[in-house]
C-alpha cells in the first residue's frame, strides 16, 4: 500500500513547516518526513486515472453561492469579539511588536 519512494526530504519538510507556521522539534522531523512520504506515496496512485477531459469538482451541491446586499448586518460587539483574545487592549488584539 505505501510507496517507499521518497517524495519529500527534511529540507522540504522544513519549508512546509515554515509555510504552515508550525514549529516542529528537530527530533520529530525524521518520523514526520517518513509519515508524509507514506501518505504522499499512497495518494500518488491517482496518477493512473485518466482525467484529461474532466473538470475539477469543488462543490458537490452544484448550487450557486447566494449573494446578499453589501450592508452591515450586525455590529457593536467589540466585547464579544475580543472576549477570547489571549491579549487585548483599548479595543485591539495585541501581538508581539512587529516594527522596531
Amino acid at each position: 500500500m505505501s510507496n517507499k519512494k521518497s517524495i519529500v526530504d527534511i529540507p522540504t519538510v522544513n519549508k512546509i513547516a515554515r509555510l504552515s507556521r508550525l514549529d516542529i522539534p528537530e527530533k520529530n522531523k525524521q518520523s514526520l518526513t517518513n509519515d508524509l512520504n507514506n501518505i504522499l506515496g499512497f495518494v500518488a496512485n491517482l496518477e493512473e486515472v485518466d482525467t484529461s477531459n474532466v473538470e475539477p469538482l469543488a462543490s458537490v451541491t452544484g448550487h450557486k453561492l447566494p449573494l446578499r446586499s453589501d450592508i452591515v448586518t450586525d455590529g457593536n460587539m467589540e466585547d464579544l469579539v475580543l472576549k477570547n483574545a489571549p491579549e487585548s487592549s483599548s479595543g485591539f488584539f495585541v501581538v508581539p511588536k512587529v516594527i522596531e
Partner: protein
Amino acid sequence: MSDLLKYDLLGASEAIKSKEISSVELTNAYIEAIEKTSSLGAYLEIVKDKALEMAKVSDENISKGVSRPLEGLPIGVKDMFCTKDIKTTASSKILDNFYPTYESTVTQNLWNDGAVMLGKLSCDEFAMGSSNETAAKGNVINPWLKHKKMSPGGSSGGSAAAVAARSALAATGTDTGGSIRQPAAFCGITGLKPTYGRCSRWGIVAFSSSLDQAGPLTRTVSDAALMLNSMASYDKKDSTSANLDMPDLMSYLGNSIKGKKIGIPKEYTQDGISDDIVNFYQKSINWLKEAGAEIIPVSLPHTKYALPVYYIIAPAEASSNLARYDGVRFGQRKEASSLDDMYETTRGEGFGDEVKRRIMIGTYVLSSGYYDAYYLKAQKVRRLIKEDFENVFKKVDYILTPSTPTTSFELGKKQDPLTMYLNDIFTVPASLAGLPGISLPIGLDKLGLPIGIQLIANAFDEPGLISTAHVLEKSADFNFIADGAAK
C-alpha cells in the same frame, strides 16, 4: 432509576408528553449515568445545572400543554459544535480556553425544539481521526467489551460511546469522511450523515468545508429521524446550506420497500474485510430481498481512489481552515519575541501530531508547483467518483455496503497513520459525493463486538434512507446492550 434509561429518544418523548415521566427525572437519571460511566471518558464537559434548568422549563411547558418536538430529551453534543458560554475545544489543546460567544445553528435548532443539553463529548482533535485517540484529553473507551479497552471509533467517538453507554439519550456528531458512521458501527448504534447542505455548518469548528456535515447518533433509526428533523434547516449564515424543506422524516417510518432497487457494489467486497462482516452483509442483502426489494449488482469503478482523493482534499481544506489558530484572536498563545515565532510555537505546541501531519500535507499539496499534480488532480477524480454514484442511481434507489472493513480494535494498537485511514474506506466515497448515508447495527462478531451496515441514498433522499434503514433494523432486531453501559 435504571428504568428511565431504557427509553429510547422516541419512547422518552412519548413518556414525557403523556406525563408518565418528567424531564427532570429523566435528566437526573442521565446525570447519574454520566457519573457511573465516567471511566469511559466520553464527556469533556458536563453542564448539570444548565441541563436541570432546561429540563425544568420543559416540564413547565408540558404542564401548560406545550410540547416541542424534542421537549425535555437530554442529549450530548460533540465538542465540534460551538455552544454559547460553554467551553468548546474540538478536543484540541489549542482551544483549551475557548468559550464561544455564540451558538451553532444545529445546536440552537435542538434547544429551540426543547432538547436538554447534558454536556460536550470528546472526539478526535479537530475531528481528524478514526479511533478518538487524537483527542488532547486522552482516549475514550468503547463500552463494548469494556475491560479490553477497545476504540469507540472516530472522530465522533465520545458521542457514539455515550449513546451506547446510555449516558446520553442521543448525541450530535459531525462526519467528514465517516466520523458519524464508523463510530456508530463500532459502538452498536445508529449514525446518520445527511446530504451535504442539509445541516448548517455555521458555528461548527471547520475541518474540511466541502465535506463537513452534522448528523445524529442515536439508538434507533426512528430516533435518528426524530433528531435530524430538528437538526436540519436552511441557514443563510452557511452559504452552502440547501434551501430545501426537509419532509417530516417520522412519516417515512414503516413504509414498505417493496419493489425498491438496492445496489450491491462489487468494489466493496475487498480483501481485508472480516468474515463476520461479510456474513452479516450477506444476511442484510437477504433481509432486504425478503422485504420485497430487488437486489442489483452495480459497479462504482473509482472506489479505490476515494481515500487518496480524500487525503488530498480534506488536508488541503484543513490547512486553510486551521490557519485561524494563530494565538491572536482566540485559543492558546505561546509567547515569543517575534510575531512569526509566536505563530509557530503557538501552533507547534497547540496542535497534536495528526493535526500537524494533515496541515503539512495540505500545505504541500496546495503549494506552488504541486497544486496541479495533487489538489487539482484530486478534484478531478472526485468528479469521477461523484459520476460513478450518479450512474448507479439511475439504476437503483439505494446502495448497501458494510460500514467498516473491521469491527472495533484495541486502543493503542494501530499506530501507523495510513493503516488508520483505511478504516474509512467504505464511508469516504459517499462523503466525497455529498450523499446521505446511515450506519445501523445488525449483529455481533465472534468476539461480541457490534457490526454496522451502511445504506447510501441519492442526494436529499433522507426520507427513503429512513424507510429502508427502518426495514433493515426490524429484520436485524439488534437488541444487545453494551456491557459497559449504565445499568
